[in-house]
């Protein structure tokens, strides 16, 4: 994301403190959301930086009465979209995540969960970014579709349409995996 100067004055000290508090509380969520949106592992730090830099610059436009996570998610989506357009890069290498998951396993329970997360990541990788964002926000973050549409800046009908297509693709990918047609 371009580091353009802004004419807006610095935030008040109180606003800066609030930003920092939200930053610390929500950094793990933003990190996780970037992964769910398909950011490569090695890109996530730069993208997280861009998300919070954008959030800082628009902080005085943020309505504190609204939940902060959907707002941050909307920023993360735009940052990644922008990044993709510039780089034209591919979705994250699936194996990268699976190996990470394997490395983190510690017990049988953890193993089962890690496998489910790895499979979820692989199925998510089958979704186009636009649909993926709607799917993650609605199905995983459990935000209602009108809120999804608002935070992603898309018409309500478009949000529903993307959700429908995303569910279809996600179901299909999981089914493919079950029948062994999805490459390991």
């Amino acid at each position, binding site marked *: 994301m371009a580091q353009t100067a802004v004419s807006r004055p610095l935030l008040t000290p109180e606003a800066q403190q609030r930003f920092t508090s939200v930053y610390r509380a929500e950094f793990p969520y933003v990190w996780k959301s970037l992964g769910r949106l398909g950011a490569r592992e090695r890109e996530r*730090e730069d993208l997280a930086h861009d998300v919070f830099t954008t959030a800082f610059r628009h902080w005085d436009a943020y309505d504190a009465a609204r939940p902060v996570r959907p707002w941050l998610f909307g920023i993360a989506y735009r940052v990644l979209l922008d990044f993709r357009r510039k780089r034209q890069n591919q979705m994250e290498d699936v194996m990268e995540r699976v190996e990470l998951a394997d490395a983190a396993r510690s017990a049988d329970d953890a193993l*089962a969960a890690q496998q489910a997360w790895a499979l979820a990541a692989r199925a998510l990788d089958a979704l186009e970014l636009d649909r993926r964002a709607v799917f993650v926000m609605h199905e995983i973050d459990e935000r209602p579709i009108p809120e999804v549409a608002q935070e992603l800046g898309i018409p309500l009908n478009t949000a529903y349409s993307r959700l429908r297509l995303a569910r279809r693709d996600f179901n299909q990918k999981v*089914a493919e995996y079950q029948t062994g047609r999805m490459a390991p």
Partner: protein
Amino acid sequence: MMDEPLEPLSAAALTLVLAERARPDDAGLPVEAVLARVSSTVGLATRAALWTKVVIGAVSAVVGAGLGGGGVYWRMTQQAAPPAPVASAAPVAPALQVEVAVAPAPVPVPVLPPAPAKSKLPVRAAPAPVAADSLDAEKVLLERARTALLRREAAAAWAALEEHRRQYPRGSLSEERDAMRVQVLAQLGRDDDAAGEAQAFEARYPGSLFLPLVKQAVDRAP
């Protein structure tokens, strides 16, 4: 509103979604390192106004003499930053403002549905329409079973699974059905039956996607 009805998530897909919802935050994230970079970026972008803030004393500025162009690096906060990466899923910021709505931190829970289904889960209350082919009909039955399982209506789930077994003993979705049978038996507290079915499942489908979930159902049976 919609041209076509929303397709519900399949049993396996929903299982993955539920697991992902419950996924705890990663440990060892570069929280402070990225914060320093964010501070640096926005500080450089607005450094013309920086000294005012420094005089106010709200921010402590550190002038990096050796930095090209006399770049000014500053910190946005006086909070004592923990030197080590934050490894906990719980928010650590002591001064988190109450007006900021922070969603509850996810609890590391098992992959299996831990609680009764919420109202937003797809519920097939009315009898399903007659499917055009057997795969669709199989899906309808398993969808009914899954919904009941998530709502902890084990008897209803079992009935749907049994119906599937009667109609499609070697159906395309037998693997999914047999995995759910273990989950339902575990939910019913029939631990021995669940363990037996789990063992048979593993023998029948050694590389199954559902195997970890089947094992977990047995391990976590009450």
